């Protein structure tokens, strides 16, 4: 990782940051002492750089680790919708981490330069508070013009009339290419034959692995030849030590309390959780599903996965702390892993199973809300923000990952911030391994809330897999009955 630190340090020096600034940015990124030392060493003397820092974008953007002009292709789409004749303000509700919000402000600054009559007010809300805040805002008809939406609550909020359909606007844009979007990315935002949101990302579940743990055990890294049996064997082999120093072969096991479970843990064995996409039948206690779940539970009995106690006081994703050899995470886990890990790591595809090669695919989108006072201006913003140029600027060039547009992937694969194995992320999407057959109907939260506590008893060793899955079926079936109408 030293190469990244040197590059980052060079870039910061070029932009006139002092060693004190570098130290602060390093802390914000969660860099450890060793990384920080390298970063400061790479910065050289404490004298200020001759070249002045770039003009700050909307005040705090000077603290961004990204150059405001990096990733700016300049190929911004020209909307068929005319800019407002006088100043209007649009508000956009985000839920970014502090580092990425600076990138957001950079985008907004450049957008406002291109559209002097549109003032963009970015609202950033911590993830944990986002839903409460905007549910209350919806109740008070006070939603921002544009709002971030995750796949898991998209359908519920669409059907409640919280957003406006985008089809009329899209029809006006001659260069809006639906085929440019990865197939799974649009699924959660379609309803009633209309499109209600435009996704910015859609990423597959990837196998992140700790190269240092593999090296120490003399084990070859995961590659395309791996199947789930191999994953299991290696996970058991890499498990070692005790107490706080224990190394776990795998980071997690399937739980029916997880809406993303089926594609990775059941489909490879020819089993299902709910019938997708309608989610009107529960199939979790079929013989195939029971066999698959028992197969996975063997890893728990071997002690190869952390117990709930082990995971209680660690930040997500636990992989970043270096005690887990392999973990299944969406590509959105890359930024915290890149910032928090002090070891070498990379990404491989989730291995294939005996019946199928499958991994979950999920993402998020932006919607124009029903409370928008300036829908045209909101569309102009959205059209650029989620265009190829916008996705390249925001998610691809920054290495954040998995843009929903195919045309933005080359910039992601070429980003210095993307993991070395980023091509595996792209291939999982382009080769049809990633599937959006995840639980995303409005009944989803109630399904996982009902199933999760039952599965806790399996984890605690107080119930067999078969007993638990029968109970899950009994609890879930009445909930999804409303999808049969």
């Amino acid at each position, binding site marked *: 990782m030293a190469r990244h630190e040197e590059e980052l340090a060079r870039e910061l020096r070029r932009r006139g940051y002092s060693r004190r600034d570098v130290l602060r940015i390093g802390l914000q990124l969660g860099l450890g002492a060793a990384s920080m030392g390298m970063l400061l060493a790479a910065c050289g003397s404490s004298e200020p750089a001759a070249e002045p820092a770039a003009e700050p974008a909307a005040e705090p953007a000077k603290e961004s680790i990204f150059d405001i002009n990096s990733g700016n292709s300049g190929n911004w789409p020209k909307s068929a919708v005319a800019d407002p004749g006088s100043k209007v303000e649009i508000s956009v509700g985000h839920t970014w981490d502090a580092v990425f919000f600076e990138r957001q402000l950079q985008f907004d600054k450049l957008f406002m330069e291109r559209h002097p009559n549109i003032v963009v007010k970015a609202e950033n809300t911590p993830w944990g508070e986002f*839903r*409460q805040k905007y*549910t*209350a805002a*919806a*109740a008070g008809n006070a939603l921002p013009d544009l709002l971030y939406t995750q796949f898991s609550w998209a359908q*519920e*909020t669409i059907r*409640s*009339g*919280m957003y406006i359909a985008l089809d009329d606007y899209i029809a006006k844009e001659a260069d809006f290419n639906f085929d440019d979007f990865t197939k799974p990315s649009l699924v959660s935002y379609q309803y009633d034959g209309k499109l209600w949101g435009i996704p910015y990302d859609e990423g597959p579940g990837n196998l992140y692995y700790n190269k240092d743990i593999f090296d120490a055990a003399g084990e070859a890294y995961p590659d395309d030849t791996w199947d789930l049996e191999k994953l299991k064997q290696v996970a058991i082999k890499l498990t070692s030590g005790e*107490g*706080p120093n224990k190394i776990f072969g795998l980071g997690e096991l399937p739980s029916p309390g997880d809406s993303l479970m089926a594609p990775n843990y059941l489909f490879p064995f020819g089993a299902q959780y709910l019938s997708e996409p309608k989610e009107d039948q529960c199939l979790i206690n079929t013989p195939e599903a029971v066999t698959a779940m028992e197969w996975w539970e063997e890893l728990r009995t071997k002690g190869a996965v952390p*117990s*709930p*106690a*082990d995971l*209680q*006081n660690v930040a997500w994703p636990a992989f970043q702390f270096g005690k887990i050899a392999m973990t299944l995470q969406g590509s959105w886990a890359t930024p915290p892993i890149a910032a928090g890990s002090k070891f070498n790591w990379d990404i491989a595809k989730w291995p294939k199973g005996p019946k199928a090669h499958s991994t979950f695919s999920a993402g998020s989108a932006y919607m124009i809300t029903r409370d928008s006072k300036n829908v045209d201006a909101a569309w102009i913003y959205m059209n650029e923000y989620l265009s190829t140029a916008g996705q390249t600027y925001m998610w691809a060039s920054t290495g954040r990952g998995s843009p929903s547009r195919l045309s933005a992937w080359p910039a992601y694969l070429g980003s210095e911030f993307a993991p070395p194995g980023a091509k595996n992320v792209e291939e999982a999407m382009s080769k049809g391994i990633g599937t959006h057959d995840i639980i995303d109907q*409005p009944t989803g*939260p*109630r399904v996982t*809330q009902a199933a*999760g*506590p*039952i599965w*806790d*008893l399996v*984890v*605690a060793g*107080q119930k067999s897999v078969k007993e638990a899955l029968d109970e899950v079926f009994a609890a879930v079936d009445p909930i999804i009955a409303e999808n049969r109408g």
Partner: protein
Amino acid sequence: MAITTPTPPKTTRPKLGGMARKEELAFYLFISPWIIGFLLFDAGAIFASFAISFTNWSALSTPSFTGVENYTKLINDSLFYKAMGNSLYYGLGSVGLGTIVSFLLALLLNQDVKGMALFRTIFYLPSVVSGIAVAILWIMILHQDFGLINSFLAFFGIKGPGWLVQPEWAMPSLILMSLWSAGGAMVIYLAGLQSVPIHLYEAAEIDGADTFQKFWNVTVPMMSPVILYNLIVGFIASIQGFVLVYIMTNGGPANATLVYGLYIYRTAFINFQMGYASALAWVLLVVIIIITVIQFTVARYWVYYEGDVKQ
């Protein structure tokens, strides 16, 4: 000795003098910030939630009137009973244990010992620590493999349980953890103890009372109004508990710590069932009122107010 309580004569409110009127005005001025704040920020929401409880409303769309459907629905909702049971369990456990521990601490810290101010500060300190920090601290203390408690038990050859991860131990763990904030009640007890008149103890000594008899016949009766206050306030707060549970266990494992507040939160903000969540909240209010009335009713038999005359 049977003494009856004289019936107080019925009186009309006496006409206030100038000074009394000023005092009355000052009273209203002092409480006005709270009253104005309540009317502006709370009262509307409270009354609105009552109306919402008779609707099917996701908060995202227009509500539809459903009558008492939300209230009848909870009769068949197993999670309603689970959450209510968990909250009562937590309330009884944490308030019962907390009352004993904080009262005993107050008795200890009421002694005339050098450096007592420092001890009082130390015991009160945990009460001012941020809730999140407390939660993370206790997650580590209660860790199954290398937590402080299980390490201590292991010293004696005892294998400690998975405190927060085994369903049968999760709620006792939270109750144990609630003792962390016993300092708040302790300060109130301490203030009460310092106001018990010395002459009562002197009179008891003259009558030949030993230490325990003085405690039981003087300290406890004189402190009973304070104990009642802490029981009522503590129980109301406990039964509404949410934040620490949300952070530490999020209701798990197996819903063992799904307290009522967390269930309301999930129903409202995860499942978008605002009408049902409002009904749940109003049922909680009724339960709290019933329990408080019971506490006041029972208090007639064990709480002593100075000047009271009991049969």
